[in-house]
């Protein structure tokens, strides 16, 4: 299950999604809002998502993880909206019979989510300005770069 939420993420509420009598454990990853990035002091973040496509792509990533690794259940929740320092931006949970698969699948899911799911992050800096991460303006506008 992949979903977006506008509310604070409570990992405990998603724990039942990982339940399986064959599970020997689970592995989770929590992404938190940190107070600095590339040497700049960060005050808060805004996340924005193209949710209808984002859920589809997120579900594809979870299905890929289940196909690649011997896991039982996998889930991911990503927050959108305004977040303060220390808040949880993303949670990934994977249950499996054995820990190696749980760790590997958890890593796979967070890496692919960061790379593929249409979510954007705007950082607000202590110096007053703000910017969309990975979207720094480069060459003059023109035809799309493929």
């Amino acid at each position, binding site marked *: 299950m992949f979903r977006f939420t506008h509310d604070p993420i409570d990992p405990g509420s998603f724990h039942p999604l990982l339940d399986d009598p064959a599970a020997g454990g689970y592995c989770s990853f929590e*992404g938190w809002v940190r107070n600095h990035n590339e040497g700049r002091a960060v005050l808060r973040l805004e*996340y*924005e*998502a*193209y949710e*209808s*496509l984002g859920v*589809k*792509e997120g579900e594809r990533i979870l299905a890929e993880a289940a196909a690649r690794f011997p896991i039982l259940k996998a889930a991911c929740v*990503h927050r959108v909206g305004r977040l303060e320092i220390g808040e949880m*931006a*993303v949670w990934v949970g994977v249950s499996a019979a054995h820990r190696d698969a749980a760790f590997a699948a958890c890593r796979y899911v*967070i890496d692919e*989510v*960061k*790379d*593929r*799911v*249409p*979510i*954007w*992050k*705007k950082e607000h800096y202590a110096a007053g300005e703000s910017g*969309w*991460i*990975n*979207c*720094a*303006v*480069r*060459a*003059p*506008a*023109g*035809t*799309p*770069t*493929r």
Partner: protein
Amino acid sequence: MRIQVEYFAVLREHVGRGAESCETAAATVGDLYRELDARHGFPAVGRLKVAVNDEFRDWDTPLSDGDHVVFIPPVAGG
């Protein structure tokens, strides 16, 4: 034909709204991008992707009346 274009993040802020309805003769989504770029002067933010009707598509995908198009700037989830 009429195409519904939705904007997110850096493009939404640049255009000043989250969506617009466009009357266009553009044959492909790439042609539509160039037409709208001429109108809005989109910022060059790196490698753009594009989605048509909530699926990632190639830039040479043909357009049909009523399509929903989203230009996708580099993502930064997590």
